[in-house]
């Protein structure tokens, strides 16, 4: 056989190629972007060190991956591998990634990490991937103008201090009657899709565009465009972004409502405490007045009393309410805030309002305004509907007897009359509310509808 010498150059070439590729692989694996940022930080620390001890500590800083493991949030955040100074106020005003993160006292990093609020890809250690701006990562970092949306993952929208946009979004959601067609939290209509996880599925850009012109993004959508200012569209987008349906563990869910006096006040009204107790001289006489209860009783006693009244006053007739711990804290906070103020200021519960006011509340609750207009003025387009291709106003209720109004509401109008009999079915129809609305609510709603008709003399 011929000599193998003719293969020697191939052997050398292939051997070198394998060696070179192994080195290239090693280089790619070893020299990572975050190590540079860590060296920068360590150098920065050394230059800022004033005392010998600090200098020694700075010199001892290693270059190593950092991560916050958050089993309760089902995530691992490695953001602090590069963002090393988030907890050091001395770095306020520094450029990223070495900037200080203000306002984190109530959300300590070891409990919350970063991505639960900011989104992005916590496990990643390369910039673009970590910020989630890569293919196949569905949650890129949330723009700061939408950051309040993340509050809603744990907190009820109306309770969070310092999140006015979220509260505004929630209010718009109610005012616009979105719930008439969409379900949120298991309540609402069936004409549109459920919104419980919409924030996890849709991007802010999609949502904002969709609000302005739904048909452009969803062919055949019967949702009316939102005719509001850009600021309102953003607020509503932000509220939607907060609806991610994320399953959080108890620690985080217990913060769903911040146990402050506002929540306590709502609970106080809902549970009908005023039926037995009085505040500011108004209310029931069965139980003791509560104006000064926090002066008479220790905070500890009040909390125990809420958990189980009989445990601290065996003779009591007060029933045991199954309050959650945050609710108990909220009620205690509310009692502590009482200073003999006029109880009527917070006693505006629906049962004391007029039937028309209560009916208005029912109108909002079921999202009627989503189709019939915020004040029953109608006008939402409904293609090929006989009523001028739009949903009728409710100011014409005067011509209709109560019994018909009732049947419209309870049974709905599944087949609205067509403008062109050969044309397609109008996309929006009146759903049946019979199985949802109570008799009292129905009566109140009709009172409200009657109040919308113009008075005989032409004035409403």
């Amino acid at each position: 056989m011929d000599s193998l010498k003719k293969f020697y150059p191939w052997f050398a070439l292939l051997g070198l190629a394998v060696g070179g590729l192994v080195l290239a692989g090693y280089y790619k694996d070893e020299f990572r972007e975050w190590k540079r940022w860590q060296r920068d930080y360590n150098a920065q620390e050394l230059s800022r060190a004033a005392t010998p001890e600090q200098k020694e500590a700075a010199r001892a800083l290693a270059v190593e991956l950092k991560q916050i493991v958050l089993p309760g949030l089902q995530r691992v955040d490695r953001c602090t591998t590069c963002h090393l100074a988030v907890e050091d106020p001395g770095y306020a005003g520094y450029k990223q990634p070495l900037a200080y993160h203000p306002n984190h006292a109530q959300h300590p990093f070891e409990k919350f990490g970063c991505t639960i609020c900011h989104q992005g890809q916590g496990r990643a250690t390369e910039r673009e991937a970590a910020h989630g701006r890569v293919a196949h990562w569905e949650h890129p970092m949330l723009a700061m103008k939408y950051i309040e949306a993340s509050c809603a993952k744990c907190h009820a929208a109306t309770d969070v201090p310092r999140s006015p946009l979220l509260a505004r979004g929630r209010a718009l959601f109610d005012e616009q009657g979105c719930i008439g067609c969409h379900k949120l939290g298991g309540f609402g209509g069936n004409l549109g899709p459920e919104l419980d996880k919409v924030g996890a599925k849709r991007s802010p850009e999609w949502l904002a565009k969709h609000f302005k012109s739904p048909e452009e993004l969803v062919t055949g959508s019967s949702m009316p465009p939102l005719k509001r200012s850009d600021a309102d569209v953003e607020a509503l987008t932000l509220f939607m972004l907060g609806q991610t349906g994320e399953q959080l563990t108890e620690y985080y869910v217990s913060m769903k409502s911040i146990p402050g006096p506002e929540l306590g006040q709502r609970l106080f009204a809902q549970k009908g405490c005023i039926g037995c107790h009085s505040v500011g001289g108004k209310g029931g006489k069965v139980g003791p007045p509560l104006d000064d209860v926090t002066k008479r009783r220790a905070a500890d006693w009040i909390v125990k009393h809420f958990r189980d009244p009989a445990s601290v006053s065996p003779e009591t007739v007060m029933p045991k309410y199954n309050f959650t711990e945050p609710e108990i804290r909220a009620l205690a906070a509310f009692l502590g805030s009482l200073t003999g103020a006029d109880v009527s200021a917070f006693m505006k519960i629906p049962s004391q309002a007029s039937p028309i006011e209560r009916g208005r509340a029912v109108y909002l609750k079921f999202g009627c305004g989503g189709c019939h207009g915020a004040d029953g003025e109608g006008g939402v387009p409904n293609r090929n509907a006989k009523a001028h291709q739009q949903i009728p106003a409710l100011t014409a209720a005067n011509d209709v007897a109560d019994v018909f109004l009732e049947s419209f509401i309870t049974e709905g109008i599944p087949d609205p009359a067509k403008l062109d009999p050969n044309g397609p079915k109008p996309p929006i129809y009146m759903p049946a509310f019979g199985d949802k609305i109570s008799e009292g609510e129905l009566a109140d709603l009709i009172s409200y509808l009657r109040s919308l008709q113009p008075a005989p003399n032409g004035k409403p």
Partner: protein
Amino acid sequence: MKSLKQIWLKFAGTRVGQSIFRVGLPESNLGRMQAMVSSFLLHLHPAKVHRHSLQFSSTLGLGLISLYLFLILCITGVALMFFYVPHPDHAYDNMKDIEFVVSAGMIARNMHRWSAHLMVLCVFLHMCRVFYTGGYKPPREFNWIVGVGLFVMTLVLSFTGYLLPWDQLAFWAITVGTNIAGYAPVVGKKIQFLLLGGNIVGESSLLRFYVLHVILLPAAAVFLIALHLWRVRKDGGLSRPDEPDVLVQQVETGQLATSKTYGLMELARGTSPAVGLKPEDEVPAWPHLVFRELLLFLATMVVVMFLSVFWNAPLEALANPAHPPNPAKAPWYFLGLQELTAYSAFWGGVAVPALLLVALVALPYLDRKRAGVGVWFARERRVAVTLFTICVVAAVILTVIGTYFRGPNWGWVWPWAASAVIPH
């Protein structure tokens, strides 16, 4: 170079060296053959090997490359196993950790991925090579069947591994792939259920595919590979053209009398490795075969490493049973079948694959003529070559269509047209 050899010789000559290698670096042909026979790793080879088998053009090295890829897959696979938990809660996160924080994790995963794809390709090409050179002809019929088994094993190994990253690609490829299995009459749905451990891809599917992928199928593959290589030796080495046997010729022409008793030993007919091998056509496997194998291994490594350093294995979004991509595609090597299922579920999912498999297994028993062994596209085998080529071309065309020309709802798209982005 010289001094390196001397160091080696010195070491091999010591007590320790001798105890390990048993023989020193061979200097004579006898020593070379001893080296092959007495070494555990080398004794799989014959001590001497035919020149025809050594020519690259005879085999294109495809069988060996497949074996090398299998070895790379075993080694990188075991490395990946250290960082992987086969559970939907962890699998995807594990992939992210392998990518971002495990040392050399991404390279290992890339090597595993690209080797797996390359292995499917090489095993297929190896099969084509064996067909086109008539390598399945007697006495190698059974080894062809073992080879068909190894081809199926390669596909199933790759397919079970496909699910493990638990991303959208994995989830829906396996959903589509097992749906194809479900089209079989009577047993289809049962097989699908057995594979998935349920009616849809879920927790138990992942565990099943994992166990199949890391234990059962590799063990079976190792067994089949051993059997395959054993039969290569026992069937008389790689197939090659018949050579006139001088002794037999002499007997037939009456030049050599057969009445002598020694003739019984000399004139054995048939397929024993000794028959027809003329000493001058063979060379010692050491170094001629071993060195070529080493070169081929280096070449395989260059390709795998090159792909792995410069192209990352894909990882899509976390598997979401509620959001099928449109279209959901099976792994590429099944896209030919998926394309067929688009026309007829029965033909694509059942009839065609079953017929192909039966045809492949029956092939050596149907085509029994000895002519054309060891020759590419032998003239005598024109019909067989044409039929096989039609099947291969059809499979390639269908696979290419399924891979590059099918878009949403399995509609036709041009690969260069911008893909319709579904906004969300």
